[in-house]
């Protein structure tokens, strides 16, 4: 479904020093597959996700989604691609302050002008364990709950591909397992592929496929730590 072909993105910093953020990346992701991009800070994970989301243009290479080159899209088509085919799980700070959980989760549905947004996102939020927090404002939610609202927002439009950039960066071990377990479960049900960028080996352990990114290059993944096995939602809740 998703194919990255010889993707290259270089930057130049203030003193002219070149940074190879993404350097010849080749990767395929099948529908419903959960892929983790594992690597330390500055390894190029976020740049790679931004390339997949067509938020940046590569110096070379291409990204194909269902055989379509996303860099051939016009600005409007790129917006449409992100709006309808992608689900992006950002940082909890990106939630609208003051807005209720159900309103934050409905944001993408508002943007797509879809009626009955609330009816769509409420069951999703309930599945994510936020049934009793629907009307709570951003400030009244914990970090874990905010992260789950972001998952609901990303999945509300039934995307083909979900991109998650360090979604558990601010969570403890227990909450990380809970959130990622839910994400995997919901995406599998919807046959949505997930590309997760993380520096946390425990988070990477939830993936079907893990790629390690170092200096912009994909390498064979060698786990350095004992990983916590993936758990189902019921296990996580227990």
């Amino acid at each position: 479904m998703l194919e990255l072909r010889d993707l290259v993105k270089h930057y130049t910093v203030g003193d002219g020093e070149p940074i190879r953020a993404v350097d010849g990346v080749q990767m395929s992701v099948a529908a419903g597959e959960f892929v983790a991009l594992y690597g330390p800070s500055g390894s190029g994970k976020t740049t790679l996700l931004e390339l997949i989301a067509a938020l940046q243009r590569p110096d070379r290479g291409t990204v194909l989604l269902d055989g379509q080159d996303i860099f051939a899209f016009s600005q409007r088509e790129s917006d449409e691609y992100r709006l309808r085919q992608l689900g992006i799980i950002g940082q909890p700070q990106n939630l609208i302050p003051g807005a209720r959980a159900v309103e934050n989760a409905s944001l993408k549905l508002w943007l797509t002008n879809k009626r009955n947004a609330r009816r769509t996102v409420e069951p999703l939020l309930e599945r994510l364990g936020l049934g009793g927090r629907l009307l709570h404002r951003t400030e009244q939610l914990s970090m874990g709950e905010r992260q789950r609202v972001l998952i609901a927002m990303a999945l509300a439009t039934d995307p083909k591909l979900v991109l998650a950039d360090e979604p558990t960066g601010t969570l403890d071990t227990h909450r990380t397992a809970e959130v990622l377990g839910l994400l995997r479960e919901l995406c599998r049900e919807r046959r949505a592929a997930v590309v997760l960028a993380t520096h946390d080996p425990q988070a990477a352990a939830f993936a079907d496929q893990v790629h390690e990114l170092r200096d912009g290059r994909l390498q064979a993944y060698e786990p350095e730590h004992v990983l916590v096995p993936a758990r189902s939602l019921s296990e996580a809740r227990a």
Partner: protein
Amino acid sequence: MSFADVLFLYRARLRARTVLIQECFAILGIAIGVALLFASQVASTSLSRSVAQLSSQIVGNTQLQLDARGPGGFGEGLLTEVRQIPGVKLALPVLEQQATVIGPGGERSIDLIGTDPRFARLAGSLLRRFSAAQIAAQQAIALPTPIAREVGVGSLQPVKLQVGATVMTTLVGATLDEGEIGGLAKSPVALAPVGYAQRLTGMQGRITRIFIQTRPGREAAVRASLERLAAGAGVNVDPANFDSTLFAVASQPENQGEILFSAVSALIGFMFALNAMLITVPARRKLIESIRPQGATRSMIVQILLFDAAVLGVLACLVGVALGDLLSLVVFRAAPGYLSFAFPVGNQRIVLWQSVALSIGAGLIAALLGVLWPLRDVIRHPLQAREVSAGVDRGRPLVRLGIGLVSLSLTGVVLLFDPTAASLGDLTLIVALVCLLPFLFDLLLSAFDSLQRLFDGASPVIAVTELRTPPTRVRSLAIAATAAVAVLGTVAVQGSQSNLQRGLDASAHGIDSSADVWVTPRGEANAFATTPFRALDQRSLARLPGVRGVGVYRGSFLNWGSRRLWVIAQPTSSRQPIPPRELLGGDLGLAGARVLSGGWAVLSQALAAEHHLHVGQRFTLPAPRPTTFRVAALSTNLGWPPGAVILSSQAYARAWASGAPSAYEIAVAAGTTPAAVRDTVARALRSYPGLAVQTAAEREQLHFELANQGLSRITEIRLLILIAAVLAVAGALGSMIWQRRDLIAFIKCEGYRRGVLWRWLCCESALLITAGSAIGALFGLVGQLVVSRALASATGFPISLGVEGSAAVTSFALVSVVAVAIVALPGFLVVRVPARTVSPSY
């Protein structure tokens, strides 16, 4: 994205208390700007429209008028001749004279209008009402109810009326309220049948105007016949509503001055608005950066922002117009009194739709610019904002520095070489301030940084660090710029006002000091000594102890083209016929001697320029008996906006065919004082209750007060700018401090005590405001000179150029101290936030 979705998103965002407070500050900021603009607009239009309204209510459907050239009017026999002209449908006689009504509650200058009630039904609504009033056939006058109430009389009660030096008792036959004559109820007029008005004024058989209504298609022919008639009778033929034109010219300098000051107010209001909007920028930027990657298109973002701007703009305009309305009611009420000597200026408040539209338009534009401008980079390049801004920012400071220096140089060139382009100088000065502010701010910050190292305190260090932090820099500079522009505005306005005041005072001193003691008709309406009265026994006055000599002064207003001139006719005994400081061209001694010898006159420069006259050239003064004079010298307008003419008293008597004095100038003998002579003369004239005897110093004081009254609106504008500046800056600072709660909670984890944090906030606020105010005060000093020059060239007023440093220091200190004192409270509340390990957001 539907409207409902945009609305839903807006409402959702507004639930956050921080966002709500920020939006409220933004609304307040724009509202202050709208209020300033609206109030000054209403004040300006009320002034000009009150005269136009009265004029139109008198002239009705008449098209032309015959207008006397002097206060003595013309014989009413002319009326019969006018009525015999073919094509004349109606000829309405009017006798108009300045008078004062004196009642138990006080006195008030009015325009006494006498007309023929039999024909008044064909004139404007004011005179139509008069024709129906019960006094039509009676020996009584009708007064607007507010005037009657002011002087403490009612219907069918006696009231004293002073015309010239004569005081007589008459009856108030009717009072006319707003229900009958609308807004004119606030006009200073009194109505009487023409015959009775002639008796009251001692002008039997004479009138001052004839309003003429022509038959359709005959106006040109009638005008030609009237001009032939007028040439022989020494009267003018003018359009019926010509007073509006004359008043427009007379009030133009005042209006130009106010426009200049209103423009400064509007600019400051706009800065407040933009500044207030900048407070809301981080929240909007964050929203865009959150939803743009999710697939929100540019048009969706623009829709969301436009909706924000519309809500802010509409609410701010509503609040601003209401606030401005209140301001115009409570503060901007004083009409410039000096204009009422020559025109019936009412104190009605006239709100035109144009004023509302202009204010609302400016408010909406401010909201739109405030929302869209700071986010233009995110809208244009929403996904590559960081890369683009990094590239562009490198060149920007140098461009700004260049523009700032060029603008400052241009201001200097204008100031030194071309005062007529002074408005350009004002603009370039403000551009220079805005462009150079970041550099000057950094300079002052570095100076403070070096200074604070001498003391070992944490608060100043954090304050300096925070002010240098890139995420908060735009907001900090915006607050400093607001303080700077506000202080610049107040310093420039105050300084130029002082220059104008000094100029007017010097002019009044120059005119009044031509005698030691003055005898003039009593009442404010005669402050310019323009009302003739029956001559006194001059020899008896001269024989009084302490009197060295008595001269006859004559004066009046004369229409020349579209100007109503102030005519000053000095007695031959005058020791100073021309105020020395008012001379702009010519030799003072020679010009004075020539004027007193007759056949020569001093003209205001603007008047001479209009008629292309130079010193020595001949011109014909359109007096009742047109007379040829030569230009002895050129002067300022002596404080009378349309201009003035100075000639000799004897020449005036010939040209006006009247020997009636307007004042007596008394010179005091050596060994006595003006006050003693004043008392002696007053005792001798106690049988003339309509005459006032004043020393030159007392008369000067009266003129100083009048000049002050004329400038009162400028004082009010200045005060409002200052108050608004303090509130806006304090508001912006308060909001900025409130936004720091997360940061303070985060810093508290490091163990900082409340006291240190509070001192930091106060120190940062003080630094921002004092730096901004100091820069503004510095530019304000240049602004004083530029605005003074602008006023001098635009208005022709006598202006004494100077730099008023005290204005700069006062404004700087006031804005700094009050704003910092106000923000100390929110600072105190904010530092009480509990320590939290959350990442700070700006």
